[in-house]
């Protein structure tokens, strides 16, 4: 166990602790009832350290996506509390939640990241445009240069490769300088080279720009780019690993595998 994340058995971080960009307090998520009852999250308490790159790993059905959705305010929890910074998400109504997502959170999804009718640049500034805020031009320049998309800013998503599209999505997530970025299998649809580019970029944005990123993945080599890895099984955090490498992660994952469940 490291200082940055604790399993459910450990004491929860005190509320208002400044070194966490997001944290959850004994959150549960239950779908259905009676025989169809599925426990996706089972009292997870976790803190996402500020300025770090955290990967969440687990086999299919482990609840890693649900954890991300609940922490990002996309889904409600059955029990427990979620904080982004000092804000308790579980008490927010849809309107405030939407505003919080817009202003404090960046998203990178596996696919369908971009609005097809907008150019790359328009997609990047979309969250700020929705909020009616002007992007900081210097910061925007830096983001655009970092993702290396300057010659393609006027292009529509359909005119970009899959890797380029994901880089636009990364730039969009970074451009508004959110408190935290949630990435859901950002390389899932990419070939390994493009995937590596995107991961490299995410890591550098953490190291050079101080961004906080949480990435859900089932790919050990993707997880290896993170500063630390949280392992999730059956809705519970079962382990964490600092300074991961692909081999160590893979080794660790094998230990969780239940008969018949593949980590791919």
């Amino acid at each position: 166990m490291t200082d940055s994340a604790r399993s459910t058995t450990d004491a929860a971080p005190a509320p208002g602790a400044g070194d966490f960009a997001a944290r959850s307090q004994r959150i549960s998520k239950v779908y259905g009832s009676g025989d169809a009852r599925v426990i996706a999250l089972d009292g997870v308490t976790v803190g996402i350290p500020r300025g770090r790159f955290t990967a969440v790993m687990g086999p299919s059905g482990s609840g890693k996506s649900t954890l991300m959705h609940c922490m990002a305010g996309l889904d409600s929890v059955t029990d427990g509390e979620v904080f982004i910074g000092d804000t308790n998400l579980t008490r927010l109504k849809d309107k405030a939640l939407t505003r919080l997502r817009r202003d404090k959170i960046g998203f990178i999804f596996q696919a369908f990241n971009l609005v097809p009718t907008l150019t790359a640049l328009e997609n990047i500034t979309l969250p700020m445009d929705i909020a009616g805020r002007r992007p900081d031009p210097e910061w925007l320049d830096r983001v655009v240069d970092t993702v290396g998309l300057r010659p393609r800013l006027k292009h529509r998503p359909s005119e970009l490769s899959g890797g380029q599209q994901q880089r636009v999505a990364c730039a969009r997530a970074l451009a508004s300088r959110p408190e935290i970025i949630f990435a859901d299998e950002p390389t899932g649809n990419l070939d390994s080279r493009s995937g590596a580019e995107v991961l490299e970029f995410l890591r550098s944005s953490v190291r050079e720009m101080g961004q906080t990123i949480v990435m859900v993945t089932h790919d050990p080599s993707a997880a290896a780019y993170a500063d630390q890895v949280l392992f999730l099984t059956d809705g519970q955090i079962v382990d964490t690993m600092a300074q991961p490498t692909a081999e160590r992660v893979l080794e660790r994952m094998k230990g969780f595998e239940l008969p018949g469940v593949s980590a791919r």
Partner: protein
Amino acid sequence: MSAVPMARVTLRNLAAHKIRLVLTAVAVILGVAFVAGTLVFTDTMNKRFDDLFNRIGTNVAVDVRSVKVVDSGNDGEARPPVPQAVLAKLRTVDGVKDPVGTVDGYAALVGRNGKVVGSAQNGPPQLGTNWTGDGIARLATGRAPQAAGEVVIDKASAKKAGYNLGDAVTVLVKSGPQHATLVGTADIGDMMGATLVAFDTTTAQKLLLKPGYYSEIRMGSTGADEATLRDRVAKVLPSGTEAVTGAKLRDENKSQVASFMSFFRTFLLVFALISIFVGAFIIFNTFSMLVAQRTRELALLRAIGAARSQVTRAVIGEAVAVGFVGSTLGLLAGVGLAELLQSTTGSGGSLTFTVTPVIWSYTVGIVVTVVSAYFPARRAAKVPPVAAMRDDVALPQRSMRIRLALGSLLTLAGAALMGLGLFGHVSNPAVPVGAGAFAVFLGVALLAPVISKPAVRVLGWPFARLLRTPGRLARQNALRNPRRTAATASALMIGLALITAVNVLGSSMRSSVESQVDKQFGADYVIEPNGAGGLSPELVAKVKKTDGVTAAGAVYSGSAKVSGKRVSYSAGDTAELLSGTRAKFVSGSQTLPRDGMFVDEDTAKHNSWTVGSSVPLLFPDGKTETLKIAGIYAKNQFLGGRVINEGAYLAHTADPSVEVIIVNAKKAGAETKHALEQTLSARPDVKVQDQATLKADARKQIDGFVSFLTILLVMSVIIAAVGVINTLALSVIERTREIGLLRAIGISRRQLRRMIRAESVVIAVFGAVLGIGIGVAFGAALQHALRKQGLNVLSVPVGTLITYLVVAAVIGVLAALWPAWRAGRMDVLKAISTE
């Protein structure tokens, strides 16, 4: 694969997309309801008229009447009367049973409230007759009228007027009000709103016709068949009279109504057809979108072995099902519509059902749906099987160039056809004009995707400015699939184009009439009957004696035959007539001798007549008189084409009737008008008109006509609005992921709703702009074609057209309500999760 699994696919699809099915079916339902409603309603009306005329002539074996020398074709005029002496002769003919002379004319009933019972203009007739004791009227209460001062009224009218037996009643006839005692009421069955006042025969002759004359003489038979009796009767008739069988009389009555009803039915069906045409756009668009959304599923079917034709059939199968359901519901809605129409026409009674509406409802509903779905179905079959394995599939899009060429060609050909109908000399101009308009609509609809790009950019600009990002996204969404936007807008375009054309025409009519009144109405007042009754010469004398009146002249109008063709003319006090209409003479003199005639320039030119030409006129009394052209005047709307001497008119007319009285006053003003109204106080069926009221009357009539047509066209706009709902709802489904993404990165529900609303408004306004543009062009072309018929001023009602643009925007907002609500409610997680 056999047909069975494909049918299963079809049925499962229908079940899985109930809302889409309903929305598509709505377009079919509304169109079919219009058709079915029209057919059921007109069938019912036909049946009622048939019943009425069967009752009227039941006991008549032979009818004697005067020969109609000047036959107008539409039977606008009464025949000259038959002398009473003929009746005595008929009594001597073997086989004739109870010959009865009937007298018919105008007699309006004044109710207790001092108002005339029944509608004044163009309403059901206000009939006066002599009580004959047979025919369709049976006494319900009291007794028959036996002397002057006694009347019998039909039961329904007596009730409406508030009269009981023994009451003093007022009846208006041509010569003025008559006071009489109500001695009986008559039961005459369904008269469809007409009123009946019966006098004793002598009084009826005096008040309604001419003493010593009958309108016609009817008789039964003691045994001989109708034709035999007719031939026997014919032998004793004086020249100028004829005998017809009862069967012929009944047929004539029926065929007059039948031809009117068939016109009425065709008229309504044209509007039903327009609604269906608009519905076809909606069905086409919906099926195109369904196919586009199901590309992968269709590809899967192809990949596992379905033939192209099977895929096409599966889609067509859906269309048949939608058409069937839509037709069934449409038929039911149509019956409801007919019931509603029936009850608004005032008289109850049950509807008449024939098999025709059922056949037509199903034929129209299914054929239109299948034809509209055919092209999308063909496209569905072209989906390559490999599309099942690909991630982002798009149907192959055909190039816009073919569209551009075909659209331009159709538009031009349509415009040319319309031009031919309007300005060429075609026997039935409605056909080329209608077909041309149809082609123009199709052509513009084909061009619309090309036009939509710049148009949507401009129309979306205010939204992009006002709503910022949601507005910009809305504009981009409307631009995204130009074909879809264009088809949706085109549906709205058709209805609005026709409504605009009607409004431009109405507005031009108003302006034309107003300019004619200003330029050609020279009198201070005219007095004219409010309903069907004419005025008597005695009234002219009374008007002359009114305080402040300096001159009053009667104007008659009549008809005659000139070289075999029926023409109409005015007659009357020449000086008053010419000054009252501000006639401008181009040649000849302004005095009209007894054997003279004035004609207007067009008539003179058309017949190559000049001043001094002799023209033989055959008058309704069968006599021919040759008149000399005395003068030629510039075209005048009030004067008409010909003017003859009052003496000539009176000499040839048995029962002269004053059309209007032209009045000039010392000082035209409220005082004189009031005095005139005082003079006419006993005649609620007569009104005094000055320039202002003439204009107001014309305006009211034109506005009525415009509103009537607009209401008939509103159905197509409603169908188009359903189309907008359909497009948006399907677009929202199609863009589920995108909407989820937008919600995830922070667009609020309100912003999302605004975005969808703005897209809807842009599409609707685009359709309205196209429609109004085409409508103004159509209206202007119609006005130009009719300029010789008096429609000489083109007027575009800008205010009204702006209102329609606003209405279109409101339609856009309303159409977006449900799709926007649905989009806002969408589960963000479901929307973004991959598969």
